[in-house]
């Protein structure tokens, strides 16, 4: 388990529990009691800590390496997943994975950013930072879903689109713009969930959906707190302040009307109980799909467009 800075007291307690467990080879009842007592304390501490995470702490949780990523969700929730590759123009970009599959019995298209879970897979997936080919593949798969009347589920988890010379040369801006345009043009349901980090244009490229949900401790922002701090505060140190000012938590975004719902995470965050987190996402997506089932394609498209046109009419105050 990787512990975050602010989880130090929790880490210490869990360390103690671990030690005691090693001692308890002899079935000493006193030790079992002590473990139980400490575990209750850990739970209480977790509940207290996670109930009032600051935006900067949420940023760290959202980026936690042990959090379930796109492929974890697909393995847990999608049957017969059939990955489809390539943008048909230049390359296969593994920062964005997509394919056909069966979600709760229904065929659908699933697309999302994959960050990877160890050095090798992180490099393979470019840490979830897509190049134009990734967005062009997403666009191609969304169009395909549209043609076959299949709902689209997108899972967003990216620090942002890849800032590289090659990406710019091949039209990063245009690729993102077309992906957003495609999201907004679909005549099938589009459900988007920010599962970790929703980083700027690279995130909204997949997230202009009929229903946009966020995991409880996910973040979604126009710029990373670090980027914002270096531009406006002229110091990366101010990332904490920038995280506060940007209002990037699921709770604030819900108040702003930018997202439609928040998916609760297990005690202490999705990384402590990935199975529970993934099941909660499955239920929430299924509910959202159910709400849209049977709606005419034109209505789905018009409602989605209307929703984004209306956004930003009110502030937080």
């Amino acid at each position, binding site marked *: 388990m990787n512990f975050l800075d602010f989880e130090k007291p929790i880490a210490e307690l869990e360390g103690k529990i671990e030690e005691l467990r090693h001692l308890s080879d002899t079935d000493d009842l006193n030790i079992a009691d002590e473990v139980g007592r400490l575990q209750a304390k850990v739970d209480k501490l977790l509940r207290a800590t996670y109930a009032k995470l600051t935006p900067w702490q949420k940023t760290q949780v959202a980026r936690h390496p042990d959090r379930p990523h796109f492929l974890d969700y697909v393995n847990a929730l999608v049957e017969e997943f059939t990955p489809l590759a390539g943008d048909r123009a230049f390359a296969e970009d593994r920062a964005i994975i997509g394919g056909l599959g069966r979600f709760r019995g229904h065929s659908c298209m699933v697309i999302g950013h994959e960050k990877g879970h160890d050095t090798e897979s992180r490099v393979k997936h470019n840490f979830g930072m897509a190049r134009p080919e990734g967005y062009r593949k997403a666009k191609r798969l969304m169009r395909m879903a549209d043609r076959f009347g299949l709902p689209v589920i997108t899972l967003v988890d990216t620090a942002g*689109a890849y*800032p*590289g*010379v090659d*990406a*710019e*040369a*091949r*039209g*990063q*801006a*245009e690729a*993102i*713009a*077309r992906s*957003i*345009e495609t*999201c*907004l*043009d679909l005549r099938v349901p589009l459900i988007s969930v920010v599962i970790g980090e929703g980083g*700027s*244009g690279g995130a*909204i*490229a997949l997230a*202009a959906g009929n229903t946009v949900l966020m995991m409880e401790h996910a973040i*979604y*922002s*126009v*710029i990373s707190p670090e*980027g*914002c701090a270096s*531009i*406006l*505060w002229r110091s990366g140190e*101010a990332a904490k*302040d*920038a995280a506060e*000012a*940007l*209002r*990037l938590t699921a709770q604030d*975004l819900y108040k*702003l009307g*930018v997202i439609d719902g928040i998916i609760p995470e297990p005690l202490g965050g999705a990384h402590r109980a990935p199975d529970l987190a993934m099941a909660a996402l499955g239920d929430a997506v299924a509910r959202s799909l159910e709400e849209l089932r049977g709606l005419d394609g034109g209505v789905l498209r018009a409602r989605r*467009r209307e929703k*984004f*046109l209306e*956004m*930003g*009419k*009110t*502030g*937080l*105050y």
Partner: protein
Amino acid sequence: MNWLTNFVRPKIQKLVRPKEVPDNLWHKCPHCGHMIFHRDLEKNLSVCQHCGHHMRLPVKRRLELLFDGGDYQRIELPKTVADPLRFRDGKRYSDRLKDAQSKTGEQDAIIVAHGRIGGVNVVVAAFNFDFMGGSMGIAVGEGLVAAAELAVLQEAPLIAVPASGGARMQEGILSLMQMARTTVAIDRVKEKGLPYIVLLTDPTTGGVSASFAMLGDIQIAEPGAVVGFAGARVIETTIREKLPEGFQRAEYLLDHGMIDMVVPRTRLRDTLIQILRLLRLPGPAGEVVALPVDLPDDTGEESAVRG
């Protein structure tokens, strides 16, 4: 002290010393370093006559340059929520907004105007880079939505002229949402079969380039304009290498197939007129065809062809 130092020297100095002139009469070209007299610069549309470098053009000058006879009507834009997040860094965003408003005399970073270009009725949405770097927040998004609505209402082509560093960070996620919002807006224009033309000016980056600004039927850029998604500094720190010569400039985008043409400012109006007429007046000259637009006044055919 004598007659020579007190009287003769000042006289001589007065003769040789360049006449004291207000600073703003001469401009230094940031590219070639030549000094350019302000009247020459204005006459040459802020293009250096020595090296052809295109300097940024103030938005009102831009509009004068585009429309027939420099004549256009601005539309009033709906009021939007100012400072929705009560954002504050070293300074309050609401104070930054007020400063920008008093500096520019404008409400926000976009002007929407309509008028005629080559006799064709058009709507133009032009960014004001002097207003917080032309950054796109709710008000700018609202401007593009209004411009698109006006274009649909008037059955007129829409020309967007971005000059923007990207999304306005101080409006947080709501500025990011303008990417989706403006995309819907310009799509409505396209759906009606109306041309949507983008004139990319220096700079067009970030969330602006990754939404409506890259979705034109025809993409035109001014020479040397920086157009791209990620900032050059961000890329340099990511890849830790120097960027290629001319990277993210208009000519680079042209070479990479991202835009249709790079047009010098002096030929911009003529180029636009040609495109607008090709798209809007498709019949041979003099032939009466079904036209969905107002014809130029001199043909006098307008009422006959619009049923």
